[in-house]
């Protein structure tokens, strides 16, 4: 059997092209590397998390009021939407402030904001959004909301659906509610607020973030994050 004639010029161009593309090209039989985590935009936190929040996983951020949970969520929303992705924010306590999110850099037109009446409806809403696909971040804000109706089975189901997607599933709560269902859990607590003296002005809030659960890496690391009041 005759082999097809070789074209040295074309092969050379192909070799150059493959070299230029570098690591973006993989051989078909090799497994693709896992998608990189999605950075939160808060440098100290990203460093602790190994680059950001993992995709297709249930991540839980818990903490009391003024502990920086919402700032973390806004930073993630901003980073996600600035990259052109869509994000969904499921807001049970109706606490999302568009002006504040916009200041953090969120492209509001890429955010789907849903305000369900209770936690159970919030989980069902998240399920619908994950099944629809195309959203890089699905945030469920249960901080300050009644969470006694949240069944562990619902969270397990949600986590299983998220595992088949490229989305970060973020759960915001006052206290940890996902328990072992969460792939990653961060507990936040307020440290101190700094006010300038003359004139009186709230300048920044310092918070501490502790990585308390991580299925794929070490835990119990603590970082301090400074959150500044935007001008």
């Amino acid at each position, binding site marked *: 059997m005759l082999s097809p004639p070789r074209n040295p010029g074309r092969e050379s161009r192909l070799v150059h092209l493959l070299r230029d593309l570098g690591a973006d090209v993989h051989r078909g039989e090799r497994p693709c590397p896992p998608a990189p985590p999605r950075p939160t*935009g*808060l*440098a100290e936190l990203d460093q602790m998390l190994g680059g950001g929040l993992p995709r297709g996983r249930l991540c839980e951020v818990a903490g*009391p*009021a*003024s502990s*920086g949970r*919402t*700032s973390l969520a*806004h*930073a993630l929303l*901003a*980073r996600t939407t*600035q990259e*052109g*992705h*869509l994000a969904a924010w499921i807001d049970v306590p*109706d*606490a*999302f*402030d*568009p*002006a*504040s*999110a*916009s200041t*953090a*850099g969120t*492209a*509001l*037109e*890429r*955010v*789907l*904001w*849903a*305000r*369900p*009446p209770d936690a159970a*409806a919030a989980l*069902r*809403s998240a399920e*619908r*959004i994950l099944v*629809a696909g*195309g*959203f890089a971040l699905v945030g469920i804000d249960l*901080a300050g909301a009644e969470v006694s109706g949240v069944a562990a089975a619902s969270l397990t189901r949600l986590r299983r659906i998220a595992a088949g997607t490229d989305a970060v599933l973020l759960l915001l709560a006052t206290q940890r509610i996902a328990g072992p269902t969460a792939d990653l859990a961060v507990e936040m607590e*307020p440290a101190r607020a700094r*006010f300038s003296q003359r004139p*009186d*002005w*709230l300048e920044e*809030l310092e918070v501490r973030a502790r990585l308390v659960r991580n299925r794929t890496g070490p835990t119990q690391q603590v970082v301090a*994050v*400074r*959150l*500044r*009041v*935007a001008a």
Partner: protein
Amino acid sequence: MPDLPLAAEMRVHPELQERPVAVVDGEGPRAEILSVSPEAARHGVLPGATAVHGRAACADLCVRPSRPALVRAAREALLDAALGVSPRAEPSPPGTGPWAQEAALVVDAGGVGPLFGSETGFAGALAERAARVGLPAVVAVAGSAGVARIAARRLRDGAETTCVIAPGDDASFLAPLPLDLLGPDDALAQALTRFGLRTVDDLLRIPADALGTRLGASVAPLLALARGTVREAPPAVPVRSDFVERMDLEIGVDRVEPLLFALRGMLSRLAERLDCRGLAFADLELRLGLDGGGRDARRVGIAAPTLDVAVILRLIALSLESRPPPDCVLYVRVATEGAAVRGDQLDFFRPAGPTPAVLSRTVAELTALCGSGRVGAPAVADTHRPDGHALETFRAGARRADDRGVRHTGHQLTLEDAAPSPEPTALAVRALRPPLGAQVRSAGGTPVYVRSALANGDVVHCAGPWRTTGHWWSETERYAFDHFDVQTSDGLVVRLRFDWTTRSWQIDAFYD
């Protein structure tokens, strides 16, 4: 559609398909039978007889009164099926004599070849769409509407549902057919029978002048039809109207569940009609006829066009549960304008989101879960009011004209690809809606102690006040606040305000 009253009844009650059914005009035992199902005809029940005669011939006969609302909806559904395959379609005048119950549509088949491959493909597609809307219609394609109608009548009792007469073959197709298929009036039919003319071919053998002399001018249209030389204007493009389904309930309903059961069937039928036209449900108008003559009309908002009946039903259920009908419901009417599901131009440089159809369905599902006006894209309200916010229709990232990325320069609009200026470590504000009442002890107008459901204790740090006023000309909307950023001894940093209109302290947000 050979038998519209029967088809309209079967469309709503498909469980009657295999049963002997007679549709009667009016109520009572003396009501005249308009049409019968094949099973009833096998038992000897004939149109024209009375209901009591029909029952005598078939003891199991199911007698249903003809309901104009169902017939009208079936007629409109047939038109929707036709408009799904051609832009021009219109109802034909009703038939006479044995064809009195038929419903015929004239559909323009000109230029449909590239879409359906052939006229046979066109006829098949039309019959398939009619079946989808619950109406087993027969379709005939011919050079004129009159010949096509005759060809369709020939299909009435056969197994075939489509018939295509090749161009120029109209006359040869008609030649062997009996004359009564052409639909002559009674006097003309009697005269033709008296002359011994039985088929179209018999008629065409007689010179036209001789026929005209003996039978008068009324024979001319019959001759033109028999020769296949009728010239007709193409059917008109119909004026777009609402899609309506109405159902009279057999017994009054005073609970939501049975009402939803009836609505499910109506919505399914509407969904098929809309799908035929390439549309989806837009806002719904639901009208309930009440016992005592009252009426309950409501509008059910749908966030994005969708064909998902379960979602629409959920939205209606929410509306009915929040405001139940005040009395027993006797009839239900659902109407929608129908809207096209949005297309989407993918951006080459941005990640792809969900498809418009999936997004529409998802937004509608979320609206059903969260309630109307609680799903959308957040927006900064055009107001100086500190707690102002807005909700817009979510369009999966479509830029707004007032975005920061869009810069107005004189009369020109320049689109910048610059993203909003990022503040990655910005401290976020968490809103409290409605604001939380607080008991505050102040010294010289500055808070020194706060007691509330959120923050409690001595004020450790305080910044402010910042005064905001607006809408002073409106009695109901005016506002005047003195805002303070306050840290209490329990560690919380809250946004405290003194409302000058109510002269009370409130916490409208906290830093988080």
